[in-house]
């Protein structure tokens, strides 16, 4: 487990040094906010908490907290997810 984290850290640093996209090289989460109604996320690690006003998503080393009204998990698979609703805030923890 520790070896895997170390490998990720190395890849992350390599991406930084060589100015390569981190989501492709190190598998870092990538988020795309379209207006305030749609949020797409790639390379997520799963849902941690779910509600119509707040959804917590694991991004590996960080946790993404999406706050708003009428939030809904529209689609989800192993690598991607889509959240719709009135998004008020996105917080990284």
């Amino acid at each position, binding site marked *: 487990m520790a070896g895997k984290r170390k490998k990720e850290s190395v890849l992350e640093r390599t991406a930084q040094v060589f100015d390569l996209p981190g989501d492709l090289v190190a598998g870092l989460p990538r988020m795309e906010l379209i207006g305030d109604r749609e949020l797409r996320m790639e390379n997520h690690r*799963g*849902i*941690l*908490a*779910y*509600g*119509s006003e707040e959804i917590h998503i694991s991004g590996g080393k960080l946790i993404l907290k999406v706050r708003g009204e009428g939030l*809904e*998990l*529209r*689609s*989800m*698979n*192993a690598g991607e*997810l889509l959240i719709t609703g009135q998004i008020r805030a996105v917080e990284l923890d």
Partner: protein
Amino acid sequence: MKKVVNFLRGSVEVEAQGAFPERFLNLCAQRGVSFWGVEWVESTAVRLKVPRQERGDLEDLAVRSGCTLSEVERGGLPTFLERFRRRYALLAGLALSLLAVLLMTQFVLVVDVSGNTEVPSATILSTLRRLGVRPGAFGPALEINYIEQRALLELEGISWMSINLHGARAEVLVRERVKAPELVDESEHGDIIAETDGVITRLEVLAGETERKVGEPVAAGDVLIQGNVLLEGPMYSEQDVGWQQVRAQGRVEAQTWRTLQATIPLTAQVKEYTGRETGRWFLTILGKRINFYRKSGISFPQYDKISSTWNAGSGMDLALPLSLGRETMREYTLTPAEVDLAAAQEMLEAQLERALTEQIEGGSITRTEYTAVVTDEMLTVTLRAECTEEIGRFVPFDEPGYQTRLPAGRGDETNS
């Protein structure tokens, strides 16, 4: 679009209950189970919808995530159709209906003929009926090519025929034969004689010789154009070459006078209905008549039979081979009645004019005069008409009883 797809493939709404229901969601996502409509019921329970065919995979995932799974609702088309799975009568009816539709479209119900103007459709239809193309015939069993050839042989006025089967409708396309011009037999020699008395008004000789002139009166039987032509000798010769026989041809129109007469009794037997009537119903399916009555005689000594038929599909401009009919027998007695003199005279005049038109065959009526006389309870109407008509009739030399004569002043000779 997605809603339609989800409806068509069917969906199941499940509720996962456990300490960490989000783990169940994450496992679903990892295993590629597509889901939607996620609803967090409480902190320990989540509801979601999955496709019907992926429902079976969820049990294992629920166990692995430490949740208990319960089914909330099923929806979509497969669930709707599943209700009918045990309704055997309905399924049997549906299957029979489909079978009936498939089978019925194989039978000819309507035969449409098009492309004919001279040959009546009824003649073509009756020939085709005899050859097997009729309402009720089984389409695949018809030998179309053979029937087309046979029908062409039997129908003289038709030069081409095509029978196309469109389900229950047989479309018959025909092309009519172009009439060949009338051929004159030049080898048959003879004269043109007058068919009736008259005064010549027009004379056109195409073959033969004539000494008649316009304005000359002729009697029936007089030779108008002769088939014996004199071949004159060369100039200053005292002898002619001889006679040549040809087929006399030409048009001879003359003013003629015709008298026609017609008679009618002034008393006639008139039907008087007694008010007694009886009716009987029948049904005709695919040309077969089914009577809804027993075979028994009609007790009326004199009666009129009036048939009324109601054809299925007549309002839709479609003649289906199903009709309901009723025959009504109305009793009547015959009573003598006076004929209206003016109406009777008018009727006879019209009849005489029709008869005259038929007699003169394309000629014209110049003047008519009617006289009506009543004698011995009989009305007699006489028509005297002045007409212009073709009076020439070809008579071959070898017609029995006919003797031609050479033109006057050129010696008499008889041909046999």
